[in-house]
């Protein structure tokens, strides 16, 4: 059965279970190697900056739901071909190797559109915030980063 536009709107405001994410040194090294950046030293005991892509890694890794579950909220599956449309990372301060971040967020927008070539599709926007769990939530320094994404769901049956 087609996923109704009215159902789409009921999901705006839904919160993710969230969780926490640690930038483990081994993970920081491997990710930097994958993305062709300089890996952090594993033998240097001092504070090191993690690759900024870890904002996305943490936001995704600690959503508290799997991709299949998230797609299921919108009556879709990976087989329907959902794709990322846009992404925005905002860093209030650099991420640190070894640090743990508390991750929370939710669905912020959902809109049905019709393209001349693509047909009907839904654009869903969601955001995840990374906070320093060592600081009170209302401390101005607690909010470390924010990741916003949009996912495009093709609706071939709409």
């Amino acid at each position, binding site marked *: 059965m087609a996923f109704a536009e009215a159902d789409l709107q009921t999901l705006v405001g839904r919160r993710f279970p969230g969780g926490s994410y640690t930038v483990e040194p081994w*993970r920081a090294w*491997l*990710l930097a*190697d*994958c*993305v*062709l*950046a300089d890996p952090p030293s594993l033998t240097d005991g001092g504070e090191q*900056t*993690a*690759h*900024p*892509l870890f904002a*996305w*890694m943490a936001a*995704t*890794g600690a959503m508290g739901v799997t991709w299949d579950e998230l797609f299921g909220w919108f009556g879709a599956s*990976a087989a329907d071909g959902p*794709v*990322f*449309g*846009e*992404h*925005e*990372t*905002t*860093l209030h301060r*650099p991420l640190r190797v070894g640090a743990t971040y508390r991750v929370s967020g939710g669905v912020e927008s959902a809109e049905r559109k019709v393209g001349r070539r693509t047909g009907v599709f839904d654009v869903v926007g969601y955001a995840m915030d990374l906070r320093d769990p060592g600081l009170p939530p209302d401390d101005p320094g607690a909010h470390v980063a924010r990741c916003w994404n949009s996912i495009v769901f093709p609706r071939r049956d709409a």
Partner: protein
Amino acid sequence: MTTAAPVEVGTELPPWEVASVSAEKMKTMAALLSDPTPIHWDVATLQALGMGDRPVNQGPLNMGYVMNAVTAWAGGAGSLRRLRVRFLGTVLAGQHLRVRGTVRAVREEDGVRLADCDVVLEVVDGDPGGDAVVSGSATVVLP
């Protein structure tokens, strides 16, 4: 920063290139992301789907190259304040990529000097002009 020239509107960032996108790094990235999507690492699946035999690079890696380009120019991984991108196309194993950037604004905020840049990741295989696969904007802290 890799240049001593003053930063101003129109300043072009040094191009940042990936000579050949590695299928092996996609495998490691899939494990790091716990991403079960086989088009990033299983050629048999790609062929069954009629997608050829070159694994498709993960979107976050493409985004990471753009981050590398702007932070290499601005002075390090800690210099990125904001990155907004739109995913326009796919990148395949073996492709030659280039990130280009241009300063759109230089401003000061809370006593920190920032540069807003337009950025684009292009596939340059056989096309000197490049075919944009990621485009957007980035804000970095200037030294």
